[in-house]
C-alpha cells in the first residue's frame, strides 16, 4: 500500500500531547498543506490563525467544551472562513467546504509528520464561534472560526491505549 493511503487510513484523533515543542518549520509545513486544499472557484476563502501563546491556548481550553485538550497542546490552528472572500449569493456558504478540505489536509499532514491532532468543531455553533473569537481576542466579525485543531507530539500512552486490541473479548479454550 502506498504511504499516502496508509496515512489516510491510519489518521486518528489525538487528544493528549507531550511537552515537546513544534518547530516553526514544521508549523509552516502544516499551513502549506492547508493552503494546498482545493476551493470553490479558487476563492481560497480561508484564514489560518496559529496560536502558540500558552495564555491564549489555556483561555480557549476553558471556553470550549470539546477543546479542553488545547491547554496541553504546544499549538492550535484555528481554521476560519473569511466572508469577504466568499462568493456572492447562494454560493457564499462554499467557504465551509473549502475550510473543511483545508482542515483535513492539516490533519493528514500532521499525521504524516508524526504529530497528533484533532478536529474540534466550532462553526456553526454560535456560542463556540463567539467564545473562540473572544479567547483569541480581536477576530473581526467577517472571520468565522470553523475548526479548532490542537496539535502536539502524541504521548506514548495514548498511542498504546488507542491501538490496543480489546483483549478482554478474546477467550482461549473456554470463557
Amino acid at each position: 500500500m502506498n504511504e499516502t493511503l496508509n496515512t489516510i487510513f491510519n489518521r486518528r484523533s489525538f487528544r493528549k500531547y507531550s511537552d515537546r515543542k513544534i518547530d516553526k518549520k514544521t508549523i509552516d509545513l502544516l499551513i502549506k498543506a492547508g493552503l494546498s486544499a482545493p476551493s470553490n472557484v479558487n476563492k481560497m476563502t480561508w484564514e489560518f490563525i496559529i496560536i502558540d501563546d500558552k495564555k491564549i491556548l489555556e483561555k480557549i481550553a476553558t471556553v470550549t467544551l470539546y477543546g479542553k485538550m488545547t491547554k496541553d497542546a504546544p499549538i492550535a490552528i484555528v481554521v476560519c472562513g473569511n466572508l469577504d472572500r466568499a462568493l456572492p449569493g447562494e454560493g457564499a456558504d462554499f467557504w465551509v467546504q473549502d475550510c473543511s478540505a483545508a482542515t483535513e489536509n492539516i490533519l493528514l499532514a500532521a499525521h504524516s509528520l508524526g504529530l497528533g491532532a484533532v478536529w474540534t468543531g466550532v462553526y456553526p455553533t454560535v456560542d463556540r464561534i463567539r467564545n473562540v473569537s473572544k479567547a483569541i481576542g480581536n477576530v473581526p466579525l467577517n472571520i468565522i472560526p470553523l475548526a479548532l485543531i490542537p496539535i502536539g507530539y502524541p504521548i506514548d500512552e495514548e498511542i498504546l491505549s488507542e491501538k490496543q486490541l480489546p483483549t478482554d473479548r478474546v477467550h482461549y479454550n473456554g470463557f
Partner: protein
Amino acid sequence: MNEAYNNIITRRSIRNFTGEIVSKEIIDLILEAGLAAPSAVNKQPWEILVVEDREILDTIANLEGFYTKMTKKASAAIVVCGNTEKTLPGLAQIYWVQDTSAMTENILLASHALGIGAVWTGVYPSVDRVKKVSELLDLPSHIIPLNIIPIGVISNENTFAKEIDKSCIHYGKWTK
C-alpha cells in the same frame, strides 16, 4: 518530505480524461479513503453514489448550470452525499457538510496518490443543482448531494504551479 505530505501539496484538479476505464479495485480504494475521513461525533452522515453508466455520465456532463463537462470522458463520477437521517440533531445537523467535505478531500488525495485524475465540482448549497442531481439519481429528500467528482485516466495533465497566497496566515492575535 514524506510521500503522503508531497501528495497533499501536489494534488491538482484534473479535468482532462482519456475516456479509459478505471478498475474496480482502484475505485474501491479511493472510496475506502473517503470513508476514513473524520466526522463530527463520529456520526459518518454520508452516502456515496458511484455512477458508471455512460448515459448518466453524459447527462451529468450536459447539466445546465454545472461545471461538469469533463464527465463526458470520465470513467466514473463519485457523488458524495449527506444523509440527514444520520446527522446530529438540531442546529448541529449541518455538520454533515464539513464531514462530507473532509471525505471529498480524502477521495481527491487518494485519487492523486493512485495516479487517477479527479475534480471536485460543487452541487450543495445551490438549490438548483441539488434539485437537478436529486432528480437525475432518484435521491430521496434526506439524501443531499454535496458534489460530483468525475474521475478518470489522466490525459494532457496540466502541470501549472498553484499560486499560494500566504497573506492569510496569522501568528498569535489577529494581524492584518
